[in-house]
Structure formats: structure tokens, C-alpha cells
């Protein structure tokens, strides 16, 4: 009921004025009054959502200008308006210079003028508070950009420098075998670089893109993933077990879902334990009551419990094994946030990892 109303604090040492103000405006605004600056402080503490403060100038303990000077320090957000019956030029100058008041209102005020002053003051308040919110968002985005630029520079440069190093060695090589060894390395470095560029692309798809909601063709999604990972399963002797249970349709963004699944599966295949027999990756997809449940499990190198809290952080890597960039799980988490989904992970070092996800349909 009160949520949408403008909250106004009116201060005057004359009780009749307070009653009059309340009578005129209580239907349209949420009116709070105080008979002295001392009492006004209590109201400001109690009502942090006050957007407009109107104060009388001539009061026994403190003038309106003096009061506003202090308000500016302690509660800078609300808009301040000074009300006085005397054409007191000194008060007006003080109000502007020291109290930074938004408006000066002449007593006795007329209801329409007062109303328009309150509305304009409130709009100004909304605009400035939105601005400061945007500013803190920008500050956060800038910090992230710094971190991004730092890590991206490293991750883009390091495969290039590996290749340059390999070229130097190939030039000085005494056997074709050594040249081939270096060519192999260059190829793998380029695959790594390409993978990283794909990750950046995913990052922007998730961060900046609008969601594109359609009915998700689950069998097709699964076939696409099988197309990539069945082969890897065969060549690396990893048993890829896929099960799908679907009851009813599911609406979401198929590209974002694909990014999530692809990243989780890529990790599950990448971080296998070389020496383990019966290596497996298990994918379960279940749609029920317009909700999607996903489980991705493997019996690979696992994640030390120390690092479980950090694995979704940008550029965080919990191991030096494999060619991770610290981007994959960050993208997964970011994508899930966009779809209002949840993720949990259970893992033990050297035993494997199990990721469980739930995503509501749109």
C-alpha cells in the first residue's frame, strides 16, 4: 500500500502547520512530520526511504539552513526544500550555498505549487539515486574488466609464445623426428588457443546476449553432445553413459543449455585419471514438471575440498593438470544465473566429481 507513495518529511515548530500539511497531502504521499530538527533526526533514522525533506527556516533551536547543512552530511540522498514566510535573502543564499536545497518555497504555500515541488524533488531524487547505483555497477564491471584483460592477455599469449619457442627448436633440429614433435606441439597449442577463444565467445553470449526461449529439443541436444564425446570416449577408453528421461515439454534457451552441458562434459572428459581402469563419464538428463535436472559424474582426478568454494570463480584453476583456462565453470555458473538455475558439486580428490543442476522452465 505504501510502497508506491512518495515519502515526505515535513519539519515545522508550529504544530498547526504540521497538521495542515498532513491534511492536505496524506492521501497522495506518505507524510512523516517532526516538530523540531532533533525529532527529525529520529524520523530520518527510522525511515531510510524518505525522498523529500521540507523544513521551515525559523525554528527556536536551529534554523532550517543550519539543519540542512547537517542533513547533507549524514543523509545526502533525500532532496531538501526550505520553507519560509519572510523574504529573507540571507536565508535563501545560505540555503543554496550551505544547505544545497533543491527548492525554496514561500509561506503560506499553495497546495498545487507544493505538490509540483514535491513531485519534481522526488523525480530528482530517483534520478540521482539511480545514477549512484549505476556508478557502483560500472565500478564493479571495470574491476572485472581489469581482471579479464589481465588473464586474457596471458591466456592468448602463452600458446603463441609456446609456438614461437617450438619454431626456434624446429629450426635448429637435427632430425625430422624432432621437427614433427615440434609440429605436434604447435598444433596442440593452437587447439588450446582456439578452445580459449570459444570460451570468450561463450562468455559474451551469456553476459551480453538476450535469452532466446524456445521449446528445447532434448533428444537433438543429447545427440549433438554424443557426436562430440562418443569419439573421445572411444579413443581415450572412457565409458560415456547417457540416460534421458523426459515427461512433457521444456522451454529454455537451447544455446545456453548447450554451453552448460558442453563445459561440464568437457571437464569430465579432460580431468580423467590416466591410470584408472573403468574410466567413465555419466550424463543424466531428466525433465519433469517443467523442470530440468542434470547430473554429470566422472571418476577422474576430482577436486580437493579446499578448492570447491572457488571453482566457479573467474579464471580460478584448482589443478595444473589438463589445459584449463579457469573459464569453463565460471561460464556455467553465469549461464545458470541467467536461467535461474542451481548447481551443486560433490567431489573427492582422486575419486571423481558429481555436478547436479536444476533449471526451471520458462
Amino acid at each position, binding site marked *: 500500500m505504501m510502497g508506491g507513495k512518495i515519502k515526505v518529511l515535513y519539519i515545522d515548530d508550529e504544530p498547526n502547520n504540521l497538521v495542515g500539511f498532513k491534511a492536505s497531502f496524506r492521501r497522495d504521499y506518505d507524510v512523516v512530520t517532526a516538530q523540531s530538527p532533533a525529532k527529525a533526526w529520529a524520523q530520518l533514522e527510522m525511515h531510510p526511504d524518505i525522498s523529500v525533506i521540507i523544513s521551515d527556516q525559523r525554528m527556536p533551536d536551529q534554523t532550517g539552513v543550519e539543519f540542512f547543512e547537517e542533513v547533507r552530511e549524514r543523509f545526502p540522498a533525500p532532496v531538501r526544500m526550505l520553507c519560509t514566510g519572510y523574504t529573507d535573502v540571507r536565508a535563501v543564499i545560505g540555503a543554496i550555498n550551505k544547505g544545497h536545497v533543491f527548492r525554496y518555497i514561500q509561506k503560506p504555500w499553495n497546495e498545487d505549487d507544493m505538490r509540483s515541488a514535491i513531485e519534481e524533488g522526488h523525480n530528482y531524487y530517483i534520478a540521482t539515486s539511480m545514477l549512484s547505483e549505476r556508478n557502483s555497477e560500472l565500478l564493479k564491471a571495470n574491476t572485472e574488466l581489469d581482471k579479464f584483460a589481465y588473464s586474457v592477455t596471458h591466456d592468448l599469449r602463452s600458446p603463441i609464445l*609456446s609456438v614461437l619457442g617450438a619454431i626456434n627448436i624446429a629450426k635448429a633440429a637435427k632430425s625430422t623426428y624432432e621437427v614433427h614433435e615440434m609440429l605436434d*606441439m604447435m598444433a596442440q597449442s593452437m587447439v588450446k588457443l582456439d578452445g580459449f577463444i570459444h570460451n570468450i565467445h561463450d562468455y559474451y553470449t551469456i553476459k551480453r546476449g538476450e535469452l532466446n526461449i524456445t521449446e528445447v529439443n532434448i533428444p537433438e541436444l543429447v545427440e549433438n553432445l554424443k557426436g562430440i564425446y562418443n569419439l573421445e570416449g572411444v579413443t581415450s577408453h572412457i565409458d560415456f553413459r547417457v540416460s534421458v528421461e523426459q515427461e512433457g515439454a521444456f522451454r529454455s534457451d537451447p544455446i545456453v543449455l548447450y554451453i552448460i552441458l558442453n563445459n561440464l562434459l568437457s571437464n569430465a572428459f579432460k580431468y580423467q585419471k590416466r591410470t584408472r581402469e573403468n574410466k567413465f563419464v555419466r550424463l543424466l538428463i531428466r525433465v519433469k514438471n517443467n523442470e530440468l535436472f542434470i547430473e554429470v559424474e566422472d571418476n577422474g582426478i576430482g577436486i580437493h575440498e579446499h578448492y570447491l568454494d572457488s571453482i566457479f570463480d573467474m579464471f*580460478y584453476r584448482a589443478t595444473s593438470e589438463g589445459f584449463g583456462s579457469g573459464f569453463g565453470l565460471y561460464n556455467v555458473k553465469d549461464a545458470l544465473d541467467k536461467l535461474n538455475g542451481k548447481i551443486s558439486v560433490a567431489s573427492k580428490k582422486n575419486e571423481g566429481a558429481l555436478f547436479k543442476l536444476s533449471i526451471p522452465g520458462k
Partner: protein
Amino acid sequence: MKTVKRYHCIIVDDSPFDCLIAEKVIQNTQRHLSVTSFQDGGKALDYITGLGSKPEMDTIIFLDIQMPVMNGFTFVEQFEELPAEIRRGYGIFFTTSSINQNDITRGKSYKSVLNFLNKPLTTANLQQIIDKLVQ
């Protein structure tokens, strides 16, 4: 006749490619240099601690900066906690792809770090380092 001093080399880099490249460069520069590589800084520190005290500097460490779990800076900080009779056996060089000025300034601020080398390591670079150390 001049006796050539023989150095050992330790490479600490999370990229197996870069370890291999460094190994090859070292072997191409001076055949008799021995090389041990670590992809994990913690294991390299264990190895160094295990070797114990040394009479003089006979080992060069080529250390990457950006590595997961333990980065090059943490490695140096933990290395500097080791007893002096162990530490005196090693000279550390950062080998990195970083062009970040903060990294470079911070890298040079450690007293056990001799210099800051850009990747990729080349035979010319390495020869220069050894010549300087021998002097």
C-alpha cells in the same frame, strides 16, 4: 685450460609444452646441463628441500609466474623461507609471458630473483645468463 662450471636447471611451469621447450633449449645450449621439470611449484619446493644444503650456487631455476594452485610469486615467497644454506644453491629467473607492469615490478622486487626473462626461452638468452653467472 679453463674448467667449465656445470649448472643444473630446474624448470617450474604448468604448461608441459613450455617445460619441453625449455628442456630442449637448455640441452641445445650446453649438452652437459641437467634438467628437471615440475608442473607444480609445491613439488619443486619439496624436491629442493629434499636436496638439502649446498656449498655454492650450482642450480638455475626457470620459474613461470601465472600458474594455478601455486603461482610463481608464492613459490618465491615460500622459497625465501627456506634455510640460507639451502637457498644459496639456487639462482631464480622468472620466465613469463606476462607483459603486465605490476607483474614485472613485483617479480623484480624479490631478492632471490636474479632476472626477468620473456618467453620463449632461447639459446642466445640462456648462453648470456650462463656467461654472466660464470664471471
